[in-house]
């Protein structure tokens, strides 16, 4: 069968491998482009959130290329994302595309459904249970390797001597992972990839500002949805960190994840969790970034994103109490790269001045 899935950052590298090694044919989703968005906007409800629209566009694009099945995630709410696949199926049916959307509901929500879907995928691809598990395992290792490499690139880029070198190194590193086929090969690829990034010529005398990135998962994970914000920041000489990676639910590898229960951190401001999406996380993470001496936080959210609006209404209090500036960027189909860049530059300027002032004050205090 011809199978596709949503485009989310660099994860397609691992998912492509997965589909192919399950014995199916992979239709790799193209990176979301203007065309994707236009298609999505045309066929989605007007007030659907931007991730929904981008996915609509992506699904239509892969359907055009012959995809018969789209694998995606389900969800238990409370936000709209868990209902995306149902709506997408309705829309695809209405347009007359013969594509089936298969969503993996979280095992917690419906365990039987989860196993049944896995089982069908395995059997239709003709794999033994053992081989199937091995394929899943290698895919997971790939996802982790990709995340590690991407994360590293954000830490290296603000120091790069030659603009664009980190991005080139990043792609090279991702290629290694792409080519790996066994567990040990993935591990090697990861190491080698990290080395390539480490090898980027850097100016260590720089003192980059530190920025935390929070917000809704899709627009945070998909660089094309946020106009490559983290790369933009890196090239402005700003070090950025985020807690949301596909693999971060199960790992303690980011600043935020090391701190334990994020809901607990947010509790004094929002006495309810979860509220859907990353709403509560956004509040808690702002606090943690402040505590870790970050200079500022950017909240990335789809326009009209419900949980992020709740977060936004509460963040001013957090920002005041913890003395950390927060810039909220609501993204919709109107948002242009230039607009994002201008607002980001102004914000970085502000952080620069604040840091200078703070340091002066500290000097005087001594």
């Amino acid at each position, binding site marked *: 069968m011809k199978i596709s899935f949503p485009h989310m950052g660099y994860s397609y590298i691992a998912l492509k491998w997965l589909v192919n090694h399950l014995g199916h044919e992979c239709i790799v989703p193209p990176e979301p482009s203007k065309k994707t968005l236009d298609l999505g906007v045309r066929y989605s*409800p*007007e*007030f*659907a*959130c931007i991730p929904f629209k981008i996915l609509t566009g992506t699904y239509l694009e892969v359907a055009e290329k012959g995809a018969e099945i789209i694998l995606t995630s*389900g969800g*238990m*709410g*409370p*936000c*709209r994302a*868990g*209902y995306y696949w*149902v*709506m997408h*199926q*309705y*829309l695809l049916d*209405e347009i007359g595309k013969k594509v089936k959307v298969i969503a993996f509901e979280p095992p917690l*929500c419906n365990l039987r459904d989860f196993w049944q879907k896995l089982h069908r995928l395995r059997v239709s691809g003709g794999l033994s249970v053992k081989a199937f598990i091995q394929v899943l395992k290698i895919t997971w290792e790939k996802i982790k390797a990709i995340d590690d490499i991407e994360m590293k690139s954000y830490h290296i880029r603000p120091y790069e001597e030659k603009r664009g070198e980190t991005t080139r190194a990043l792609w090279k590193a991702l290629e290694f992972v792409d080519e790996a086929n066994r567990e040990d090969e993935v591990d090697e690829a990861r190491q080698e990839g990290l080395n390539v990034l480490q090898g980027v010529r850097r100016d260590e005398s720089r003192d980059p500002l530190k920025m935390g990135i929070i917000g809704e998962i899709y627009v945070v994970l998909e660089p094309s949805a946020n106009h490559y914000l983290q790369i933009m920041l890196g090239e402005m000489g700003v070090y950025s960190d985020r807690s949301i990676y596909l693999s971060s639910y199960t790992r303690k590898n980011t600043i935020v994840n090391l701190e334990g229960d994020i809901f607990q951190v947010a509790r004094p*401001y*929002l*006495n*309810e969790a979860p*509220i*859907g*999406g990353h*709403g509560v996380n956004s509040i808690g993470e702002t606090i943690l970034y402040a505590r870790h001496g970050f200079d500022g936080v950017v909240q990335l959210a789809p*326009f*009209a*994103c*419900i*949980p992020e*609006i*709740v977060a*936004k*209404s*509460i963040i*001013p*209090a957090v920002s005041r109490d913890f003395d950390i500036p927060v810039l909220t960027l*609501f993204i919709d189909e109107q948002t242009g790269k230039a607009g994002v860049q201008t607002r980001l530059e102004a914000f970085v300027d502000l952080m620069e001045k604040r840091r200078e002032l703070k340091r002066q004050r500290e000097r005087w205090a001594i």
Partner: protein
Amino acid sequence: MQVSKIGIPRTLAYFIYFPLWKTFFEELGHEVVLSAATSKAILDRGVKEAVNDACIPIKLYHGHAAALAGKADYIFCPRLVSVRSHGDFGTETFCPKFLGLPDMLRLAMDDLPEIIDVRVDLKKGKDELWQVFLEIGSKLGNSGEEIKRAFTKAKKVQREYQRLLYQEKLPPEALELIEQKIPVPKKDKSGGSYDLQVAVVGYPYVLYDAYINAGLLAILEKEKVKVYTQDMISDREMNRQAKTLPKSMFWYFSNRAVYGALHFMQRPEIEGVIHLTAFACGPDSMVDRLLEIESRRRGNRPYLSIAVDEHTGEAGVRTRLEAFVDMLRYRRNRK
């Protein structure tokens, strides 16, 4: 015990649960202060106080809460997490804005009275509703005995209210009947003087707030249309409709609107379905498209969607309703 003044914003869940809350507080010996019906002043105030990306109903809530400042000792703003008392709870909860409402309110305005933000999460167990009321009553300084009595009475009044709704009374009228303590009449079989039956579904806080929907229900009444809403349908029927969908949505009020609409789509005497939606409401972007598609698939029922926002004018709503009603009549005569 000290007598407290409990402020209740006349919006959101008010239209469905007011008799329960009011009876409870009054039986405990407290005084209930209700904000005035929505007006331009209340809306403007809400727009000013709430985060500007919020939907109107949430802004409106801020406006109503602000109107209670200085008039009440408490604002009753329960955090609604799950309220279904039977059937499949599944993953149902409320729109994230409901979940965060008490906190949004608290941080938006400094001069509000203390907020009673007791968490209502009935899926936790059979006893949960009692626990909720026990918590409220204790906070107000009442004894367990008093709380028990008030709770029993409140539930009884709420049941009467519910019965009125099932008898196809609209909440504004039903609330008045309950208020005047008129004994619940037997089901009115006379039929009334209408010549068209239409279902109107949507959130109670949009449907029954005559200001925010520009008097939609009154306009329909003048047009001799009998209006049915999702709140006239039993929970059992709702649960039955839920099974006809691939998956339920996660939001209580959205689900009710959807199941209600699906129910009416299978009743031949109901000639059209109107969905009243709040402009820029997140869940509604899905509810609306789903209903639009289902109304076509389920018997090609005429479907109209009306979105209301800060600037909705009576003229605009009237024109669209009249056109819809004319179309329904034309369609019938053609048959």
